[in-house]
């Protein structure tokens, strides 16, 4: 069999400052759930990976963070090699062994309970899901409440699976255990940490 | 009229300038060189390397000079520098059995293969101040003998052949090397992390804890099976070329304590181990470490945890002199705000106390 050569896309132009600026975006997003925040320094990652996901991967992943890929990412020829080269993160087969999970096609999102949910003593030992969605500007409107939100906030988004917030109710049942989620549309991020609750939703 | 005190920035600059001046001392006295420190204050350098957790004699000497001989300050300087160094990986385990020994003693057997080697030691010196040293001058050249190729097996290995001592734990081939500087510590901690903590721990703290076990606070009947000091090779497995390459050699002191035996209905009794290892020649440190290591194995060996030296959370949380000195000395920092809060509360409580005690008298007077 001929060796397959993959032309890898580059990483950040300025590793230090781009990682800092992307981190501030995701920190702000996590602190203000439901609000879309733009990633300022983008990279051309693998073709199936949105710019925001690539920037998050370069910012948060390294050899200390096992990462789980959904089927679409795992079967793309360049994703594993790009992640390995730029971050050194080990790719794991079990979702509950992963610090981060990268999800290209959320329609086939596995049961959230299959990810690491932390323990009562160490609820931080849980998987953070980074998920590509169809839109963070158009679609259904979700009214959210919880820490980081002044009253309620409206998130308009097109998310598959459409029962995402119903599934996220495990966060309420299990708290302080749970999963934290970052939704990505292009270079735009919305965080849904485990404390965020659905107040109401409508079209 | 009140004028607010400002000018802290200038005060800091001037304090540092004065410190540098005091460090230099009388300028008519020749300045210390780093090689003078590393050659003539070698044991201070060894301690700074061990507790600073960085094997670099020159940097340790620089730290001692910069710290005006305050070894905990020097250890802190080395640690702060070490924390910024990139990490390439972990070396292969060093083989202390293959050590080029300068000193090796056992208190458990009169003679052993390879013999007892006293080497450079304060033991059996009479502690009389030597006025001759005040003048300086060269001491007599050391006595020499032909080197010997006789191997020097570790005393614990000899005991192990007869099954008289518990086996040395064998590392799992693919298990990661624990490192408390890279992962936050949680309890209970494995022996690898405990030994790492003790190796970086304050010599004085370990000495006092080791001593306390001898006096009955967690007694474990130790014998100094062997103490050896000398050079060992350090090798690094390079993945690119597929074999281990030598990086150089370092000086180490190793102490293996042989302790009271354990046994059970299913296992014959045998001695247990306590282990100490440090950079350079650091016998007091390694002996203390071996005593405390053994004491900390209480839970694993089914002993009651009753003494401070057996209490892993207590020992590991307080052994680090850089942490300890920082927090003790932070009491020097301004605490005006929290003190003011206490002052306000105390005044209020005293006022209420005075009112309560004054009230009955007034009542009596009125009657």
């Amino acid at each position: 069999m001929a060796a397959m050569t993959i032309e890898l896309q580059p990483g950040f132009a300025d590793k230090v400052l781009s990682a800092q600026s992307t981190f501030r975006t995701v920190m702000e997003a996590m602190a203000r759930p439901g609000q879309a925040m733009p990633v300022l320094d983008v990279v051309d990652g693998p073709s199936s990976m949105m710019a925001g996901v690539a920037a998050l991967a370069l910012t948060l992943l390294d050899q200390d963070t096992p990462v789980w890929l959904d089927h679409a990412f795992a079967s793309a020829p360049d994703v594993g090699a790009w992640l390995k080269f730029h971050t050194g993160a080990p790719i794991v087969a079990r979702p509950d062994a992963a610090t981060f999970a990268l999800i290209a096609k959320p329609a086939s999102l596995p049961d959230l309970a299959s990810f690491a949910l932390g323990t009562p003593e160490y609820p931080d030992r849980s998987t953070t899901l980074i998920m590509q969605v169809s839109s963070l500007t158009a679609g259904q409107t979700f009214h959210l409440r919880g820490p980081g939100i002044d009253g309620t906030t409206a998130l308009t988004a097109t998310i598959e699976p459409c029962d995402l917030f119903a599934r996220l109710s495990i966060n309420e049942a299990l708290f302080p255990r749970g999963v934290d989620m970052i939704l990505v549309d292009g270079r735009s991020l919305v965080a849904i940490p485990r404390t965020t609750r659905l107040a109401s939703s409508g079209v | 009229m009140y004028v607010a005190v400002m000018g802290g920035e200038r005060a800091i600059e001037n304090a540092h300038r004065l410190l540098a001046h005091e460090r230099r001392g009388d300028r008519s006295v020749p300045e210390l060189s780093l090689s003078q420190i590393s050659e003539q204050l070698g044991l201070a350098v060894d301690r700074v390397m061990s507790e600073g957790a960085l094997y670099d004699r020159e940097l340790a000497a620089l730290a001692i000079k910069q710290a005006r001989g305050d070894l905990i300050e020097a250890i802190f300087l080395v640690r702060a520098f070490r924390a910024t160094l990139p990490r390439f990986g972990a070396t292969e385990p060093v083989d202390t059995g293959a050590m080029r020994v300068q000193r090796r003693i056992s208190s458990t057997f009169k003679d052993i293969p390879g013999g007892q080697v006293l080497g450079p030691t304060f033991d059996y010196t009479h502690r009389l101040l030597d006025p001759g040293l005040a003048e300086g001058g060269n001491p007599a050249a050391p006595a020499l003998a032909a080197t010997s190729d006789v191997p020097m097996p570790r005393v614990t290995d000899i005991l192990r052949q007869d099954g008289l001592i518990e086996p040395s734990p064998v590392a799992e081939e693919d298990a990661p090397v624990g490192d408390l500087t890279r992962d936050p510590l949680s309890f209970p901690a494995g022996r690898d992390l405990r030994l790492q903590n003790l190796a970086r721990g304050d010599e004085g703290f370990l000495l006092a804890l080791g001593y306390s076990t001898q006096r009955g606070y967690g007694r474990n009947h130790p014998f100094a099976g062997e103490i050896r000091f000398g050079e060992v090779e350090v090798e690094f497995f390079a993945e690119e070329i597929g074999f281990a390459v030598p990086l150089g050699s370092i000086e180490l002191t190793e102490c293996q304590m042989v302790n009271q035996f354990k046994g059970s209905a299913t296992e014959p009794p045998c001695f247990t181990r306590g282990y100490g290892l440090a950079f350079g020649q650091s016998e007091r440190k390694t002996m203390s470490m071996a005593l405390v290591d053994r004491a900390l194995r209480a839970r694993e060996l089914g002993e009651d945890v009753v003494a401070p030296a057996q209490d892993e959370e207590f020992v590991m949380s307080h052994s680090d002199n850089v942490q300890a000195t920082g927090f003790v000395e932070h009491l020097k920092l301004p605490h005006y705000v929290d003190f003011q809060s206490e002052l306000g509360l105390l005044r209020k409580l005293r006022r209420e106390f005075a009112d309560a005690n004054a009230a009955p008298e007034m009542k009596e007077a009125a009657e």
Partner: protein
Amino acid sequence: MNAPTYNFAYLDEQTKRMIRRAILKAIAIPGYQVPFASREMPMPYGWGTGGVQVTAAILGPKDVLKVIDQGSDDTTNAISIRKFFAKTAGVETTTSTDAATVIQTRHRIPEAPLRAGQVLVYQVPIPEPLRFLEPRETETRRMHALAEYGLMHVKLYEDIARFGHIATSYAYPVKVNARYVMDPSPTPKFDNPKMDNCPALQLFGAGREKRIYAIPPYTPVVSLDFEDHPFTRYKFDAPCALCGAEESYLDEIVTDDKGSRMFVCSDTDYCEGRQAAGHRGVESAAPHKEAANG
């Protein structure tokens, strides 16, 4: 010799990533103490290494940094930390609470209300609010897991039985988002109400104890109390002698050895701002500014 070279904001990138991941988890679990592999910093443990590591992990070239200790920009440790970041990150520094994007603090929350987009970074010596009741980490961790906080209420109630009041005047425990009991760091309890529903993000770093925790914006933070002994804020008897402020926290200045005292704002930026706006106290004078060195 291995001559040292340092990265932007001192910390290496791997360390920053580790701290950043801990910060995200801390925000996601308000009031929970996330363990992190705290590094040895070039200032002593207990002198703000936790706050410094958090600040170093978030700081960027667009930030404007303010550092206060005891409410003041001019205390020696505040100057030392501000200089550290000016040198290693080249960021703009300020003494203005309003102009700052990142404020690192020891023992105070600024008097001026914080706004959305600002980050307040606290230096924390002992992050565990239960530590003085139970020294063992294994035990306190279990108590947090079960939300078993009875011991804390017993302690506070014993105070009331003995002194008639809760005898905790600083590092007064709070409950965050109705779940975790949290140590607000040794701020006076006067500052506790400012943490509640605050528009700014509050991050807490404990370097020696290797913990990071957070309060997201707009999060309920309640000081522990009892129905019959509600939490009260400390009230000073006199206004600030310099700016006349009635509602600020004051430093007590001993002016002679005959028992004379005066009280001035601990928050120097707030006090100077009020004086600049024309407010006066009984001892008003322009603060003495230092002359240029040399």
